[in-house]
Structures are given as C-alpha cells and as structure tokens.
C-alpha cells in the first residue's frame, strides 16, 4: 500500500465539505446551492472511501455508491424544481422562495 497517508485524504474531504457548506449558506441561487450540496456530498464520499481504504473494509465504498445514487436522484428533483420555478418566471432566489403558496 502506497501513496499519501489517510489524513491527507481527510483534509481534502474536510476542505471540500466546508467549501460546499459555505456555498449552501452564503449563495442565494438555488442552482448554486444544489452544486454546493454536490460538493459536500463528494467531500463525504471521499472521507468514506479514505476510511474504507484505511481499514481495508468495503462497506465504506458501498456507502459511497449509495450516496452517489441518492445525489443523482436529488439533482434530478432539484433541477426539475428549478426549471419549473424558472418557467413560471419567478426569481431564482431562495430568500424570496419562503412560502409554498404560489
């Protein structure tokens, strides 16, 4: 087994997660928030795989696969909503989208 130690991977994962979280908290466009969410998920995936390698177990990789599947479906739903909102010519601003009533 070669390559950097697992802590490096975790550092990159934490960086990715923090970047994503900041994006979710600071940006207003739902599209960007969705992208930031994906970055967070990828950070989590990286951490899962790193631990999987570290402990020589496969369950972390299976979790990562499951997370990818969930992320894909979430993007479908999220983008669908965004397209629907855009087609109704409503501002794509999450602070304005605070009520469910049209």
């Amino acid at each position, binding site marked *: 087994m070669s390559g950097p130690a697992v802590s490096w991977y975790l550092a990159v994962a934490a960086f990715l997660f923090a970047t994503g979280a900041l994006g979710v908290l600071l940006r207003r466009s739902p599209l960007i928030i969705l992208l930031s969410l994906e970055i967070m998920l990828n950070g989590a995936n990286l951490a899962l795989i790193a631990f999987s390698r570290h402990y020589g177990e496969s369950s972390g990789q299976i979790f990562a696969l499951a997370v990818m599947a969930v992320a894909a479906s979430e993007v479908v739903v999220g983008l669908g909503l965004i397209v629907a909102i855009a087609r109704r010519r409503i501002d794509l601003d*999450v602070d304005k989208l605070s009520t469910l009533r049209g």
Partner: protein
Amino acid sequence: MIIAAWICLVAPLAAALLITLLGTGISRRAAAYVATSSVLGSFAAALVVLAKLWGESPEQRSHPSTVWEWLTAGTFHVGLRILVDPLSVFMMLVVSGVGFLIVAYSIGYMDGDDEERRYFAYMALFVFSMLALVQAGNYVILLVGWGLVGLSSYLLIGFWHERPAAIAAAKKAFVMNALGDATMALAFFVLIQHRHSLNFPDAFSIGPGHGWLVNLVALGLLGGAVAKSAQLPLQTWLPDAMEGPTPVSALIHAATMVTAGVYLIVRTHAVFEHAPRVQELAAGLGAGTLLMAGLIALVQTDIKRVIAYSTMSQIGYMFLGAGLGAYANAEFHLLTHAFFKALLFLAAGLVIHALAGEQDIRRMGGVGRLMPMTRITFLIGSLALVGIPPFAGFFSKDSIIASSLGRGWYGDLLFTAVLAGTFLTGLYAFRLFFIVFPGEPSPFVREHLMRGSHAHGQEGAHGEDGASQTHGHDVHEHAGEGPFSMTAPVLVLAVLSVIGGWLQFAPLWHPVSNWLEPVARPLAEPTNTQEAVASLLAFLLGLAGIAVATLMYGTHRLAVPRWAFGQRVLEHKFYFDELYDVVFFRPAVGLARLFLRGFEEPFVRGSVGGVAESFRDLGLLTRRLQTGLVRTYALAIAASLAVLTIVFVAVR
C-alpha cells in the same frame, strides 16, 4: 284454553310486526284490516277462554302458564308467565272487545292519513301491550306490559309528529308515567328481597307482620296506578294527551290504558288489604280527583278535553271503589265506563271529523240538526255517564257510591264528595251536549256540514263523496256522519251503553261480583238500603246537574254565574302545571345552570379545555420558527452540528 289465551295475547303483536315488516308492501287499507282482524281474533280467543272458564268450578278458575324461564338469579325465577283467571279474562274481554270496535272505527277515521300503516301498527302494539298487562302471571310481565302501554301511548299521542303540541304532550305523558313505573319497580324490588318471588299468588302473601314493608310496597304500587290512571297528583298528562287522534283517546285514554291502575289495585288487593291506610289513601285520591276533574270540565272549551276530564273523574270513582274494597263494583264500572266513554269519544270524533278537525266547542253549535245519529248516540253516552237509569252508568256507579256508606266519618266524607261529583257530572256532560248539539247550526258548522264535501282537515278526512250532495236548505238530506266503519262501532257502543249496565243490578242479580269473587273478595257488600239511598241521591243529583245545565246552556240560556277568581283557577286546572313547573322544573333547570356555572365551566372546561388551549398556544409560539427561509434552516443545522461536535469532543 291456555292456547286460546296465548293466541289472544300474541295475535295483535303478530299484526303489529307484520305491518311493520311488510312496510309499503301492503296497502294502507290492508294494514288497517290486518290490525282490525287481529284484535277481533283476540276477542274471539278471549271468548273461548271465558267459555272454558265458565264451565269450571269457581275455586279452580286459576291457570298459570309459563312457556319460558326467562330470568334466573339464585332461587329467584321469572318466567314468561301468564295467568288466566276470572279477573284477567274480564279485562281481556274489555280490552279486545272495545279495542276491536275502536280499531274498526279508525279505518274510516284515519283514512287518507299519510302514515296510516304506522298508526295501525301502533294500535296493534298497544292492544298487545294491554293484553300482556292484564294477562301477566307475575309482576315482571305486568311491568313489561305496563311499560309497553306507556310506550304505545307515547307513540300514539305523538302520532302527528309535525305538531309541536303533540310531541310535548307525548313527552309529558311518558315522563309522568315513567315516574309511576319507577315507584312500581321499587315496590317490586322490595318484594323480591322479602318474598323471593314475583309470581302472583306467592307475592301477595306478605304477612301482616311486615307493617312498614307492606305499606311501602302498597305505596309503590299506588304510585304506578296513580300515574297510569291520571289521578291526583299525577293527573296533568291526560288532558294534554288529547293531542293524539280521537280513536286513540277513546281506546287508550278512556277505555283501557288509563283504567290499568284500577286493575292493578284489584289484582294486588291482598297487598293493599294489609296496608289499609294506603288503600284509604287510594280512595281519597279517587274522590279528590273526581271532584277536581268535574270542576275543571266545567270550563274547558275543547270537546275532547271535556271528555278527558270526565274520564279522569270516572276513574276517580273506580279508585274510590277499589280503595274501599268494592273490587267487583270498580271493575264493573270499568266495563260500563269503557262502553260509554268510548262512545262519547267516538261520537265526538264523528263531529270533529265532519268539522275538519275543529275541536273548540265555542265554534260548534247546532251540530245535532245535521248529524242526528251522532246526537242521539252522544245523548245516550252522556246519560250513561251521568248515571240515569236504565243506562249503564247508573248500575255501576251507584254501587260504588253505596260502598262508601257505613265506613265511619271517612266514608261519609267520600260519600259527600262522590255525590257532589255526580252533580258536577250532570252539569258538565250536559253543558257539553247543549253547547254542541241542539239549536240552530252555527255559521262555522253550516259552512262545514252543509257543503257537499267536507273540508279535508288534518284530523283525517273521509273520502265519502257523492253521499252528501248539497240539497239547497234541506239540511235533513245530509248524510255526512261518516262511513259505515265509523258509524257502526258508534251504534254498537251506544247499544252497549244502554244495556251494558243490566249485567249487574246489585239488589237482584250480580254475575260480575260472583265471577270476580274467587280473585278479589269484596271487603264489604253494601246493603240493599244503602244501595237504594245511594242510587236515589245520585240519581236526583245527576238530574239536578242536568237541570242546571238545561237552564244555563239549553233552552233558557240563563246567565252563567261568573266568578272571576274561580274561573281563573279552573281554567288553569288548579294551577297544577304551574305548580309542577315551579316545584320541579324550575329548580331542576336552576340546579343545572348552577352546575354549569359552578362546576362545568371552571372545572371541566378549565381542565380539559385548558390542556387543549395550552397546546394551541405552544403551537402558535413555535409557528414563528418556521420562516420558510431555507438558508436559515441550513445555518441552524450547521450550527447545531458544530455544537454537537464540540460537545462530543469535549465530553470525550
């Protein structure tokens, strides 16, 4: 014979069930015929029982029959048990015989009513209940019948359920009867505790040792009898019960159900004889009621209410007789009263029917010119009611009056009251007769009776077209007294009101007394002298009443003495309704209000409602947190995650 008795009991029930279950599957007319023929069947079966019983020696005329052990609790058994003995056969004949005539009358009277089938189902149910009451072989079946007649009475008083007054009257009757049912049930509980049996012969044998106990039982029974028979102090429901159809008034509230109290006293006379004070109380209540009802009848303006008060007064006579131990005389008066009072009601029904439901005698007058048959039959009924020989009332009433003689000061007091009652009877009966029948027809009567077809009022209307065409001013051509099914029972009852009394003439022959003697031996037989004195006085006073009525309401039309206070008291029926309103109703409502304000609102609503409201407030508070701003949520999640992580690390 037992089979016949059971058939007699079950036939009307079968008819009621049949009509109810078939619903609209049979025509209205068919329902009427089913009910009528079932009651006729009962009467035939009762006749068979009578014939069989007649052939036996008097000591053996008592046949209990149990078909089913219904209820068993330790050594206490109650079966579905009937008792066939002279008294029950006597009552079976009265109930089914008069019942048949009245149900047959209803065919014409109720013709065209929207809910004819329901009416006949109720009528059949009533006859069944009444037969169950009189045939019962133990107190439980008696109470079942007692309750069921109350129920059918309730249903039939409120038959025209779209009238608020009818519904109110039905409720009043039911509640007042329920009071009597309750006291009876309490008496039965005492009996169960001390006798371990409610079967008739055993339950009667309360020894004289249990002084207060037997008084308690007798009082309970008297309570039931007083409520059912509309005697003081539970009499106020009977006049209101006149809201029902007239045949119902005739059958239930004159001929049969209201006399059940008399039957009860006679049936349980052994209990009452051990409690002589209670029995005297019964006689006193009867005397009080007959005076009071006679006075109130003087000022009533509703034709049916006058007769209702007269019923109350006549039952007062029966109570007096039963209370004095003249059981056979009370029962005999029950029989003749069933004849002439049913006759009066049915004849009044003919008038009401012809006048399209009008019951106010102030608008009537001169009806007799246009309804000669009704006039004659009503006159016969009135004469029988007053007790003029040779009509039925004379023979039965005078024996009761005579039995109060020779009983010390109490008997003399009752005797005086009864004689005064006889005078009042003559007065109110003929006041009614003179106002309604003789003379020139009033404009109202003219309008209704001299047109060809009768206006179809709500009191039912008969489809007798063509028979009564307008014939100019020749009023005698008018034949609109009602269809055959209505006039025939009236005629039969008129004949019975004439000859029914001849069944027993105390000094010469007394088959009724002999027949009932094995069941209820009279406490005292009035002597022939007493009979003669009582008859003479009652006859003269009755005549005097008629004479005064003739002077005031008949040909001479003397001014009726007005005494404002007295009139007001009588028109308010001695303020009994008002009294009960003040004594029972208002305190109950006041107490309920008090509980509402003092308990319900602060405690019940304070606890249950308070809990609910606090949750609601909590919800209002937390609602503010839900802003809809997604980034705030995300921040909250991130912050709480950070806090959790810090705590987790720190604790570690």
